[in-house]
């Protein structure tokens, strides 16, 4: 009798546990596979994804933490076109990383939808074209740089035949020094780690790239490598989502920028539009003594507005970047001994500040 009771209790408890586990699995899978709008037969049969105008479509996306107490994202709407480079900018804690992680399928939204070429972000067909560089990647310290890339090559499902060549090409592109390639990753510096992270993104020729603060803490050479890689992706037609605090960097590489503030997208602005706007040029000179008069003369005989004039520097306002060479030519013609001419790249910063002020107001 006692054995029968014990056995019945055991069977009941086991059934309850399986039920609990299965229910959660069903929920996970529901999130994983029931949302695609395209009909597909198997992940393995999908090699190319049909290209639509809007590659990423985000509708009414919300993500709450701590049972709704913290609203990281609240009703975000955004469309990202194929081949576009878009920058996400905003203050710390605005929700940029959360938005990126939702797009990558690493976080489940509380509500709303994200569709990438019609599939949910967790779909294997999406992952095959995705590459990601987190802000603080945690590498396998015991591996060497080469081995790490071989690992990611294998993970990406690429044929093994070209593995060695692809790994070398990626390492060459990020200019990771030869002597470091066979060293254990735990001996790498911050810059080398970031280069390795960038190299793993190059594996598998991705067409959808996500970078979360890729240049934070990097030296200028490494920053240039990151920028050049993004521009190369852009030239190859890849879609790039860049999360960065370096506004000048965003302005240089991005087609559009989205300003995020307290979980909302306040403004989506084209950087081409910014280019068409007025540009402030700062000029510093060594001589001659009557430089002030000559500069005033340049301003009076052209469309350049002289905004500021100090003892050895001046600020001209131009109607666009296309006028920069004209200004320099005019300065040379006026025989001003130019020491330095540079653009006051503060437009995005001004927009960013204005966006914050609006919110504070």
């Amino acid at each position, binding site marked *: 009798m006692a054995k029968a009771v014990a056995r019945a209790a055991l069977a009941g408890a*086991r059934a309850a546990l*399986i039920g609990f586990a299965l229910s959660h699995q069903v929920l996970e899978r529901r999130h994983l596979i029931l949302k695609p709008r395209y009909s597909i037969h198997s992940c393995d049969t999908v090699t190319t994804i049909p290209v639509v105008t809007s590659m990423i479509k985000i509708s009414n996306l919300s993500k709450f933490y701590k049972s709704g107490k913290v609203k990281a994202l609240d009703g975000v709407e955004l469309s990202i076109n194929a081949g576009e480079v878009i920058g996400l900018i905003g203050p710390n804690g605005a929700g940029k990383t959360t938005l990126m992680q939702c797009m990558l399928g690493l976080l489940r939204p509380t509500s709303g939808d994200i569709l990438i070429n019609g599939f949910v972000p967790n779909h294997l067909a999406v*992952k095959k074209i995705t590459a990601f560089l987190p802000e603080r990647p945690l590498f396998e310290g015991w591996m060497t740089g080469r081995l790490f890339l071989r690992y990611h090559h294998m993970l990406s499902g690429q044929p093994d035949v070209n593995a060695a060549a692809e790994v070398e090409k990626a390492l060459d592109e990020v200019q990771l020094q030869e002597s470091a390639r066979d060293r254990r990753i735990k001996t790498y510096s911050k810059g080398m780690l970031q280069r390795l992270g960038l190299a793993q993104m190059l594996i598998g020729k991705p067409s959808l790239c996500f970078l979360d603060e890729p240049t934070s803490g990097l030296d200028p050479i490494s920053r240039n490598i990151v920028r050049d890689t993004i521009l190369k992706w852009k030239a190859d037609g890849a879609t790039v989502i860049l999360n960065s605090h370096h506004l000048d960097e965003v302005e240089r590489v991005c087609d559009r920028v989205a300003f995020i503030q307290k979980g909302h997208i306040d403004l989506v602005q084209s950087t081409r539009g910014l280019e068409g706007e007025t540009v402030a040029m700062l000029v510093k000179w060594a001589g001659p003594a009557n430089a002030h008069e000559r500069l005033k003369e340049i301003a009076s005989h052209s469309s350049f507005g002289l905004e500021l004039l100090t003892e050895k520097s001046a600020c001209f306002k131009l109607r666009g970047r296309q006028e920069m060479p004209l200004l320099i030519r005019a300065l040379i013609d006026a025989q001003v001994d130019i020491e330095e001419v540079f653009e006051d790249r503060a437009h995005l910063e001004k927009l960013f500040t204005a966006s914050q002020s609006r919110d504070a107001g």
Partner: protein
Amino acid sequence: MNRAVFIFTFLLKLSTVSKLDIAIVVLTFIGLLGAAYSGKEPTAIIEGFTSPPFLLFFGYSFSQDVALNSNSLRDGEYFALLFTRPLTRSSYVLTKALVVTCGTLAISSLFLGLVGLSELVMHAKNIVLIDGWRFVSLTVNCFGFGCVVVLLRTLPAKIGFRCLFIFLSICMLNSSTDFSVKMDQDASIVYAWEYFATFLQNFLYPVIDFDALVHSTRFTWQPIIDYASNCLIYLMIAIYILNKREFSYAEN
């Protein structure tokens, strides 16, 4: 199963074989030589090396990972790099369980080989090796404990170690039931203890004894169902936990 995760988890273990690991093997061999010299029955030693506590210990030592069973997720994003590749969580967990199975089986086989070698060195008359059904049981049980170990490794460090401690304690309690029968002062306590130990064993152990099953007079499916359902539960909970703690930024 994911080939990359399988191969690189093995590589990780091979790259981290320490002097301590080698010392343990050498000391065990010396101990076995002593046992063979004193004419001890090797069957008990073989049973020892294939028992749940040993399998759990071997499996646990084989399942290390950079992020699994650690708090290092706070220091960086490990799974973010992994799961943005075409790899599902279920595939990852299942692969890890298979790696632990192979690793545990390899270590167990090494120690069982040492038993045979020690007998050979000491010129034992009959060299006792593990028989076929016991080896099948060992292989299947390695997978069962592989599932347990992956679950324990998927938990955060502190909880993982506590669960391992509880599991090992239960292993010890079960192995001490024969001893407790000796205290026949209060038979009801002994019976209750036996039932409790059996209950825990049936409920928690993903273990099957093919030798007993095959040689029993009446075949029953119950041990097989118990084993399969236990493995399934452990794997599913591991996948569920991995889904929950995949990204340190949002552990809520």
